[in-house]
């Protein structure tokens, strides 16, 4: 009898947890992170300036956030989303992040590859005479830093 009661209590707590958790997920628009919608990235106000800048930048009509900030392929894409999603949430929640923001080397690499995927014709002709570009010493965004979003 007491065991049953204890189990009911535990089940109630777990139900409560699922309820609050589910509510939080919906309230925070957790589902939006499974989409390609750039507005999802600006759910957190820290990205508002980047989002606003993107709406005025040259790539706004050809690329959304995910085109340049996630790698191609379903699994790599969602791995990247999961990894960044966790750390971005962590830093945004704790409030301990540098300002101005700096891209991590891994994410920078993802973006560099994205440039080179769409603009392969161009980068292929630049690379041979400038070996360091192919090795990552010189990157597209070093000079073209305003094509996506200036900030």
């Amino acid at each position, binding site marked *: 009898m007491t065991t049953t009661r*204890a189990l009911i209590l*535990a089940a109630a707590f*777990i139900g409560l947890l699922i309820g609050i*958790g589910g509510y*939080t997920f919906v*309230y*925070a628009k957790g589902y939006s992170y499974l989409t390609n919608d750039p507005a999802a990235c600006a759910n957190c106000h820290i990205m508002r300036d980047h989002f606003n800048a993107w709406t005025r930048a040259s790539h706004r009509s050809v690329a959304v956030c995910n085109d340049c900030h996630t790698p191609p392929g379903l699994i790599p894409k969602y791995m990247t989303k999961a990894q960044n999603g966790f750390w971005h949430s962590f830093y945004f929640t704790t409030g301990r992040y540098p*300002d101005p923001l700096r891209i991590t080397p891994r994410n920078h690499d993802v973006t560099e590859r994205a440039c080179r995927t769409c603009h392969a014709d161009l980068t292929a002709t630049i690379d041979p005479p400038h070996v360091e570009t192919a090795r990552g010493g010189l990157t597209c965004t070093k000079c073209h830093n305003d094509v996506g979003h200036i900030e």
Partner: protein
Amino acid sequence: MIRRRFTIPVLVTIIAALAAVAVAALLVNIFSRQQEARNPFYRVVELTDETVEAAVWGKNFPLQYDGYRRTVDQVRTRYGGSEAVPRTPTQADPRSVVAQSRLEEDPRLKIMWAGYAFAKDFREERGHAYMLDDQTFTERQDVVQQPGTCMHCHASVYVPYKKLGGGDLIKGFEAMNRMKYQDARKLVTHPVACIDCHDPGTMQLRVTRPGFLEGIQKVKAAQGVQNYDVNRDATRQDMRAYVCGQCHVEYYFKGPEKRLTYPWDKGLRADQILGYYEENGFKDWTHAETGAPTLKAQHPEFEMWNQGVHARSGVACADCHMPYQRVGAMKISDHHVRSPLLNINRACQTCHRWPEDELRARVETIQDRTFEVRNVAMDALVALIADIKSAKTRGASEAELESARGHQRRAQFLLDFIEAENSMGFHADQEAVRILALSLDETRRGQASLPGGVATAGARTPRPMVQGATTGQPTKR
């Protein structure tokens, strides 16, 4: 038996409860972050065009006011900023802290300014918060009778001008210029305040200083733009420099009415300004050792910035001296106006993606080089002054000395233009060295113009540093 039956459900309960606490905390955090994003602004007081008191504005804009109040900080960089020097307050001067004396750091300044009030007392400038006190209590006041014109930039003067002029800013300006400093001082209460740069209704930037309203009109006229009204024609980004240019400029008091005038008729460059003074023959004082009709240059930051690459790239004063900062979700201008070197992260790294040490090294390289040339030019000027003096004692005629005195006047103004400018060359590095080279040329010509056999090489200050220490270690923070 009972214990074992309970253990698992109790553990599950505790874990589920802790998880629920964590999720609820996250929910609250998300909620508060979303509230932050709403950029709340609460108008708790009514601001009018007569509200001088910054603390009242601060009730509506607490974050900006908080930064503004921090201009009391005394922090030094290698070539600027101020050190807090304790002093015993007296009846006449109640300050218990002042900044370090530049005259003690570099005694050559006393020779350059011999006979002028600056040779009596000249200290490193402190933050905006001290502008009124440091002007009121400087020992320069004991040496000369200053006019009320000084208030233009040492106090929040917009409302006092309007009151004095019966609602007319320019009339009030002209009336206060003609007053004695001590009388005008009674009409003002605050150092620079919100109302000096902001419209109380819209918070837009505006120029309130007659000196700049008239000065910038002359600059624009020289460029072919007629009837330029800065408050009507300037862009928002222009204004982010112009409000600072209201005061951080070279100026003089024109005529017996002591009208504050920015000498920009020919342009903003040092040699153009000097050309203007050469034409109208204005002098600040007569040099005590040589009798030369000398000029004092005053903090021409706006003019020098205009010659530099940052101005050319559209970067305004506020972009580096009041960079944007994030407070919650709000992006506000940091109203703690200070050296960008004390805030490299926000001031420089928003555009220049290099490590802090690298950026500081770049700035200090420019400053070290400018400082070295400044010292060479100052040693040369001191030699010229000594030579004119010695020619005088040897009985050279006034006619013989006149040319040399003219060269001293010009050499000294050009050197002082860089010396008085608060960036040690950084605002426009090659321009600074160009002006110092012009100064050296004037000195050379001055020595050559003296009757034969007097010109001396003069002392040479060990380079790159100077006798005394004009440079200092940045404050440890």
